[in-house]
């Protein structure tokens, strides 16, 4: 399996222990926490995977923890589990971008699907993040003039307009443009626009 982990937060010792055991046997890496406070204390940006979160817990409950993770821009997708499912809490969970909302007793097939979905979501988002940080690194290698030219291209300006605006010859614009494409490792204007939009 991958290097992704399932972080289980449930106040019921038997539930978290049994889920930890089962997921462990199925080949997932797991970490278990008895409550939200412990989880928040241990939380690290290096964590990769997803969170399996019980709603009803003493202290900070599952939905509150989910909101906190969202506010802290934590990249771990969340699966909410509850023994007492109602529309209001399901709505709150999904508004806070839960991957799934499962009722106890858990349907294990659904749980596995949800975990795989959460992992896929984590991976695609982390890929995007990597792409973005890669692009940001490339962007830093541009000279100020090349940066200006790039922004005008992205805005949709033609060479002649850009030349007029910057007070340089269209020929010079051509040169800058070629250098931007080369430094950023893109094939054309379309790709450049896509990357730079993703970067914002």
């Amino acid at each position: 399996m991958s290097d992704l982990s399932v972080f289980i937060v449930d106040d019921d010792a038997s539930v978290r222990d049994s889920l930890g055991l089962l997921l462990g046997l199925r080949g997932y890496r797991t970490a278990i926490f008895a409550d939200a406070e412990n989880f928040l204390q241990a939380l690290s940006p290096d964590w990769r995977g997803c969170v399996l979160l019980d709603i009803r817990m003493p202290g900070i409950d599952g939905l509150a923890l989910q909101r906190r993770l969202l506010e802290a821009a934590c990249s771990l997708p969340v699966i909410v589990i509850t023994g007492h499912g109602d529309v209001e809490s399901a709505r709150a969970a999904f508004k806070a971008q839960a991957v799934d909302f499962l009722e106890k007793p858990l349907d294990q097939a659904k749980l596995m699907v949800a975990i795989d979905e959460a992992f896929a979501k984590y991976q695609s988002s982390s890929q995007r993040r990597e792409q973005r940080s890669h692009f940001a690194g490339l962007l830093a290698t541009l000279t100020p003039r090349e940066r200006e030219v790039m922004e005008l291209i992205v805005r949709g300006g033609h060479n002649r307009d850009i030349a007029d605006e910057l007070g340089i010859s269209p020929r010079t614009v051509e040169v800058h443009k070629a250098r931007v494409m080369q430094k950023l490792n893109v094939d054309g204007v379309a790709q450049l626009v896509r990357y730079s939009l993703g970067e914002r």
Partner: protein
Amino acid sequence: MTTASRLRWADALLLIVGYVALDWLSFFHPLHGLYITPWNPAPALALVFMLRYGWKAAVPLAVAVLLAEIWVRSLPAALPASIAIAVMLALGYGAIGGVLRRRIGGLGIFSDRSGMLQWSGIVVAGTLLTSLFFVLSLVGLDLVPAAGWLEAAGRYWIGDGVGILVSMPLLWMLLDERGRVQLLASVKRPDTPGYLLAAAAALWAVFGLGAESDFKYFYLLFLPIIWAAAREGLAGAVLSAAVIQVGIILVVHLQEFSAVSILEIQVVTVVLVLAGFFVGVVVDEQQRISAELRHTLRLAAAGEMAGALAHELNQPITALSAYGSACEELLARGETGDRLKATIKLMVAESYRAAEVVRRLRDFFRTGTTRLEPVALDELLAVAAAPFAEQAARSGVALTVGPMPEGVLLADRPQLEVVLRNLLANAFGAVAERPAGARTVSVSALPEGHDRICISVEDSGSGLSASAAARLFEPFNSTKSSGLGLGLAISRAIAEAHGGNLWAEVGDRGVFRLLLPFEGSPSGV
């Protein structure tokens, strides 16, 4: 019930005998030797039968009127005329009964204010119409002089109307099984001799002391009837009204009042009696509503219990199914060693846990309704605290029960035991964090006023903040990882169903107070 009951021979006979007997009892001061007497309760019986059995009762009623005519009055008119009178009266009462049936229906007639109001309105208007019709027919038959028709109609109206208004609720209740039970319960109440004595005293004051001055103490009669109505509802009002009415009739009969003053007294009496009936109906309604409220609270508690059951069972079932799948996984790998054994052991433990949940919750469902019985206070507290004695010894908690006054609670014993056990379990949980030697839990009781008892469960735990105390009784608000979060919500519902209350006090140690109705009698049960 708007459909009429079946009229059996026994019912018809009861109607005939009862009608003739009432007519015989009330036959005095007759005007023109006819039915026109100042107090005429027989039509009340006729109306009750017409209401219960519909038009089928008209035939025995006509027979009864005719028999009364022959026996009580020695047939003042010729036989054909008497038969015509009997048929006419049966038709008149039948019509009033029919209107009552249609407007109010059968059973609801004396159960709420609107039924009562409509009933009195229909009786007053109906007897006015029938008396006019009847007296005018008598004038036509030359049994009443034409010049005296107005007086005759007025007297007839008052005699009939008062007779019906005063006696019909009593007769209605006597002929109805539920009504008889209510009347009997009312007779057995300790208040009853009190207001009956008060009625006798008031009668003496009105007709003994105040007789010379136009019965200026008449209003004293309001005291016993309002007393009875306020304490025992309509049944009490009906009983005391009957006693007062009979008393008044006896007095005016013995003191040989003139027919005119009897009529005046009767008119005042009907106002008195109706006031009592209305108070009684309002009291009944209020009691019914409070009973419904209790029922609703119980339903709410049961609903919460069902939710709790689902929630609390979900945890072990979740764990069970996950452990089960883990076992499958282990077997699939060919692992049959310690890991499999340990997991199976965990499964067994989880199924015990589920069974424990069911056992604990069964307490709440054990009684379907709140069944009140006298329970001695000391016994209740001892039984509730007994299961904790062992736990107290084991975990070093000093558990004290008392002091408390002697006396009896009217309570659903299993439910109150659940409440007390719940409070004690919370207290034990609260003191567990304290160092050994500083763990005390006490149950005591103090009278609150003269008819309530305040049971306190106190512990030396860390107590409650104001915000925690405010949220404490909300369902699914638990501070314990294994708790229902419901115990206190249900305990409060039970306390309220007993007419009491349950609350926690803010402070640096745990104090729960359970207030319940109490009969502090030194004799005990």
